[in-house]
């Protein structure tokens, strides 16, 4: 059964149609890649999937339930982990504090959240020293790892990542992709948004978005 299902999704931005009649199912244990050229609506689709935007028409079902009927804050803080293209970390916090904050928001009952955060950061390749550094003192790749650790902190079923390898060198890109692969293998539904065919090739399934104007042509 699909953990996340798109059913005839349409979305318009200022009366300009961006997405039209999209239907697709995402399952647990698989890694998906949504590909498409710039302006095809990749980030818009990711916003819809993460509950940050509401479709103009159609439904998005999470585990069979319409997410418009679920509290969007609860959905974002518990059921789905989002890794933004620009990471969207709180820069005045340390890496560990960002992860702990995420656990706090989700209402996690873990007693020693700091230890759990350090462990999660270690899993994505950051040592304790790096875990206690402020975000601005970390490199792009390290920030990406913090964002992944944060998304995993409350153990969501779905991981969404927008251009997760966009600014990374080849070696780091491979390391990050290995993390995602590992998550998919552990039963998570990993959905990546990328314009890179390399990333798409590493995924189990790809879903190509086409610009609406191109479709008309």
């Amino acid at each position, binding site marked *: 059964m699909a953990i996340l299902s798109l059913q005839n999704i349409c979305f318009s931005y200022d009366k300009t149609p961006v997405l039209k009649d999209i239907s697709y199912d995402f399952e647990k244990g698989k890694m998906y890649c949504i590909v498409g050229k710039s302006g095809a609506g990749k980030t818009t689709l990711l*916003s819809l999937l993460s509950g*940050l935007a509401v479709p103009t028409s159609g439904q998005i079902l999470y585990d069979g339930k319409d997410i418009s009927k679920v509290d969007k804050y609860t*959905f*974002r803080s518990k059921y789905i982990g989002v890794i*933004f*293209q620009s990471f*969207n970390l709180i820069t005045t916090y340390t890496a560990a504090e960002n992860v702990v*904050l995420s656990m*706090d928001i989700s209402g996690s009952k873990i007693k020693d959240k700091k230890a759990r955060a350090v462990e999660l950061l270690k899993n994505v390749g950051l040592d304790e020293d790096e875990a206690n550094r402020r975000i601005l003192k970390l490199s792009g790749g390290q920030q990406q790892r913090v964002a992944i650790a944060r998304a995993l902190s409350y153990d969501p079923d779905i991981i969404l990542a927008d251009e997760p390898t966009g600014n990374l060198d080849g070696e780091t890109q491979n390391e990050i992709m290995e993390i995602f692969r590992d998550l998919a293998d552990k039963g998570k539904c990993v959905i990546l948004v990328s314009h890179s065919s390399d990333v798409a090739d590493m995924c189990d399934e790809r879903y190509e978005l086409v610009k609406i104007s191109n479709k008309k042509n």
Partner: protein
Amino acid sequence: MYILKNALRCISRSKGRNILIGIITLVIAVSACLGLSIRQAAESAKEETLAGMTVTATISFDRQSMMNDMDFSKGEQDGGFDRTEFADMMTSGSTLSLEEYKTYATAESVKDFYYTVSTSFNGTDDFEAVTTETSEEESGEDLQNNGEFPDFDADGDKMFGGGKMNNMMGMQFSSGDFTVIGYSSEVAMTEFQSGVATVSDGTVFDECTENYECIISEELAIFNSVDVGSTITLTNPDNEEESYELTIVGIYTSSQSNDATISMFSTSQDPANRIYMSANALQNIIDISSGETVEEESETGLTKTDESDEDETSSIAGTISATYLFEDAAAYERFEDEARALGLDDSYTVSSTDISAYESSLTPLNTLSTMAGWFLIVILIIGAIILIVLNIFNVRERKYQIGVLTAMGMKKSKVALQFIAEILIVTMIAVVLGACIGAVSSVPVTNALLENQVSSQESQFEQIENNFGRGEMPDMLDNAENGNNPMGGGMNFMEEFGNNAAEYITKVDSAMNLTVVIQMLGIGLLLTLIASAFSVLFVMRYDPLKILANRD
């Protein structure tokens, strides 16, 4: 809980911004604390003064009111003010009897009641008044012939502590050599209460006695070579044959100066020529003189020699000065209504010099309190505006953080709560610090401001005095300030120069108290609410997607 933790973390991570907000709030808090403290000091001073003050009041005839109420139509026909009718009205209704005074004393608000009876007697060859003049005969008799009593009081009703002394009041009160004052209570003997006068030989008469016992001044005793146990004879100034024998039971000394200005009018005005006795005994003499209690003469030792041809004009007239004591100012306020209910006519007024003096003493403090109130309002308005602006900048600066937090699933209400907590923590720390600084500085600052206010008030008063050509206050005022109240009826000579020479409250001992602390906390909360209200508005209208999309 994590909201508070986050708030604290955000405060510690943005030290510069929060220190700036803290300093501004601190300045507001110190200013507000000073303003509140000054107001509180004024309130406390009022309460303390009132609490420590026994309010006394007297009932006096309102002559002006009666003149205003007179029917002028008849007088106008005759060509003006009808003086005969006025004199009749004054004679018939201007004085209250002792019974009437006692009736009003039954009012619930009255805590205590005492009165003095004052009259004038002549001496005999064996017992003469102390005088500085060579011709003793002239001193009293010239004035006596004129039928005038020396009147230092423009109102004509204060010389004997609220009694009616002016001949316009219809009194037949001739001036003799001695002033004899009868006291109903030792409380009324203010000179002895205050220590201005002390009995140096013998003892004071019993306040309730009806025996003709008296105490005289040391000067008078030396002048006439009399001692405790001696008997003196006083005569009716209008009828030399009517005499009374008094036994001296005590001799007193007084630090009150004998002012030449006073004694030049009449020897009876010389403090040395005052004879004190119990009000009961003196009232007895007056009653006998007016023929009311002739039948008791044998029992009281009356030696009245001429009773057959006595008429009203030659009998001894006494002036009663009644003083009512009240627990507090509120009781005094109630008294007038109660007295009216007991039959006090509208032509009489109830007044208290204590209340007037109390109100005058608070003038600089009240002015300062009002100024502090306005200062407080201005400070709070300016402070609130500054904090609002700073917080709007703060929220806009942290727009991205708000977007991230809401994108992570933190509810907007919780984000707003975190912002409120941050402002509250910073504000409260500043308010507590401000209250501490204010507590330390409020008393000296209040006293310094009060001193300025008092000196400004005094300069203003002096300027007015100079404008009227009164460069210096007469010595008599000094006497009055020393507590030398000749009649002990709640009034003093100070009144004769107006009420401007009030003793102002020039110092406060404490300005900060729990009320100010609570008010400070209230101000802190108010500023937080005002400042955070705008933060909340901004937080609530932000859309995380737009914030993050714009950043991307």
